[in-house]
């Protein structure tokens, strides 16, 4: 009968055979008799359902039993419907069609669920990878526990807020509190390039205004138009007494004393990073002088915008009250206050706060330097043309800096060579008098006379040689000029001198181990120790 209606029909003589057939064929509907040998319908139905799993596989019992208990049992063991023997063919085919529709829907739903699961798994996996990268990129930073206390609590797996800190080579402490538009992964992506730029520039000891400019142009290029990053970029000088700040789009910062009273409120000066192009961007910064031990508080808007039970925001005044509630308050204590205020509501935004203590930098112990054991010898002889067209001192310093162990001394070596070379050139070769520098505006006049004399110079030479002695770890410089010799200012005083010249000679003797002139005064020998 069913084959007439174009159904494929498989026949099993008992429950076991039915289960076997299910495994071999894609069966859509099961018509099940209760009475069967080997395994009856009541035993078979639960096994069929177990086999079908999540997809709806309808079971229609065909039964001669008529008692209510049997009907009930049919349904309890997993039957979806039943029909009495002898059955009405119209009713049977109507029931089959109805259940087939339901099975079709169930199959579709199951397929969608499977796809959903697949995408979910894939997203989870990608998030794990990205989270791993973020963790390594952002939390690998050094801790500065005595200087800075901060707390970040993201509203989701990824933080749209970031807090970066680092020290420059000369001991300045830098930090950056940033708040990208929104929260979650979309907000966090900008943190990677921003952190790289920040660390690289701090490593070079660059100014806050330069860091802000670079971050802005990078984020302006990278981020889509509706995304930006509110930020406060702070530098505290190595003495802990000077603060430079670039602040764009971040809530007010506070300078507080040890007791927590607000000394100064610092308002945001600019638009957030990533909005203005390079031409429009404003790089101006603020400067503050502070007492040692002053604390700088900065927080993202998640703090002041946290909502209390009546929908009122936490607000600036509650933040100020909290800061003043005890001395040397920690960020965790502030966060606890915000949390207890907004405990009824789900966290809406990332909560971030940092408190920086303005303290002098602790001098780090220098590692022992290694010095080359090769006796380098550099010497140059310059004629008048070369004196006019070159500035040889820096070039010689750069050459010497390549000798292992010398680079750390390049500022001093520059000073020695610059003083000695300029003495030779100005006084030896050009015959200028330093007296001029003492007169009003003499400084400018001196250098214009120097330029004049230099342009007229024809026949002259200066010889510079530098000999590195590995066994004594020193460099011996000899600077000899073709002039008729000069007498270095005698009897300098180590006290501050009001004279505008002679300072160079004084510096020479302080920086070098020894300074000696030949009897005619046209050759100077300097010994500089690297130890």
């Amino acid at each position, binding site marked *: 009968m069913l084959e007439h209606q174009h159904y494929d029909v498989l026949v099993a003589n008992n429950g076991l055979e039915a289960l076997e057939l299910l495994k071999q064929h894609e069966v859509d509907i099961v018509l099940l008799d209760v009475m069967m040998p080997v395994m009856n319908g009541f035993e078979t139905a639960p096994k069929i359902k177990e086999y079908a799993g999540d997809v709806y596989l309808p079971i229609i019992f065909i039964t001669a039993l008529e008692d209510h208990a049997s009907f009930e049992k049919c349904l309890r063991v997993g039957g979806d419907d039943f029909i009495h023997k002898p059955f009405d063919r119209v009713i049977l085919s109507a029931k089959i069609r109805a259940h087939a529709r339901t099975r079709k829907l169930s199959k579709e739903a199951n397929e969608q669920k499977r796809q959903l699961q697949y995408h979910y798994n894939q997203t989870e996996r990608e998030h794990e990878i990205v989270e791993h990268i973020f963790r390594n990129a952002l939390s690998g930073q050094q801790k500065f526990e005595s200087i800075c206390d901060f707390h970040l609590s993201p509203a989701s797996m990824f933080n749209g807020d970031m807090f970066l800190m680092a020290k420059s080579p000369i001991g300045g402490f830098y930090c950056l509190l940033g708040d990208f538009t929104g929260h979650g992964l979309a907000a966090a992506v900008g943190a990677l390039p921003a952190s790289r730029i920040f660390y690289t520039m701090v490593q070079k000891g660059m100014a806050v205004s330069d860091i802000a400019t670079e971050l802005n142009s990078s984020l302006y290029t990278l981020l889509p138009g509706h995304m930006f990053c509110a930020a406060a970029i702070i530098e505290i000088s190595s003495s802990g007494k000077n603060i430079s700040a670039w602040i764009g789009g971040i809530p007010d910062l506070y300078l507080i004393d040890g007791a927590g009273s607000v000394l100064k409120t610092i308002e945001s000066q600019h638009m957030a990073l990533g909005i203005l192009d390079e031409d429009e961007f404003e790089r101006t910064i603020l400067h503050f002088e502070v007492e040692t031990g002053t604390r700088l508080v900065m927080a993202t808007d998640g703090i002041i915008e946290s909502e209390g039970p009546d929908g009122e925001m936490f607000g600036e005044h509650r933040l100020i009250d909290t800061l003043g509630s005890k001395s040397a308050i920690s960020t965790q204590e502030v966060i606890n206050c915000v949390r207890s205020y907004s405990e009824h509501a789900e966290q809406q935004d990332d909560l971030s706060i940092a408190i920086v203590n303005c303290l002098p930098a602790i001098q780090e112990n220098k590692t022992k330097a290694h010095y080359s054991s090769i006796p380098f010898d550099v010497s140059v002889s310059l004629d008048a043309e070369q004196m006019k067209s070159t500035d040889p001192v820096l070039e010689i310093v750069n050459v010497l800096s390549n000798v292992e162990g010398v680079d750390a001394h390049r500022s001093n070596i520059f000073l020695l060579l610059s003083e000695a070379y300029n003495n030779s050139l100005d006084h030896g070769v050009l015959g200028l008098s330093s007296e001029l520098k003492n007169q009003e505006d003499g400084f400018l006049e001196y250098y214009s006379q120097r330029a004049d004399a230099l342009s007229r110079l024809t026949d002259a030479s200066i010889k510079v040689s530098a000999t590195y002695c590995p066994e004594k770890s020193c460099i011996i410089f000899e600077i000899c000029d073709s002039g008729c010799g000069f007498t270095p200012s005698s009897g300098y005083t180590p006290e501050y001198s009001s004279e505008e010249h002679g300072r*160079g000679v004084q510096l020479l003797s302080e920086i070098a181990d020894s300074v000696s002139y030949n009897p005619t005064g046209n050759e100077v020998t300097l010994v500089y120790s690297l130890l």
Partner: protein
Amino acid sequence: MSLSKNASADGKTLTIQIKGKFDFNLVQSFRQAYAEVNDQTEKVVVDLRDTDYMDSSALGMLLNMKKTLGDSVGSIQISNCRPQLKKILQISRFDKKFEID
């Protein structure tokens, strides 16, 4: 080698930043930089964070600035010196005339 100058957002601080080497080659531009000091300016910062080298001519230029500005600004600060430059300033007793940070 270059020189840049920036007034702070409130106009009270003028920062002169010197990159590379601070010597007589900057004599003109350094003078022009502090010529911008006006009534609002309370403080001049000479930022040496990017300065690798200086010699006695730089010291002379700093003293000239001090002399020219006199009491028209509250303080002149030499900031972010590398250790060797700081030592040069100390040898020359500049810590008596300038704030060295």
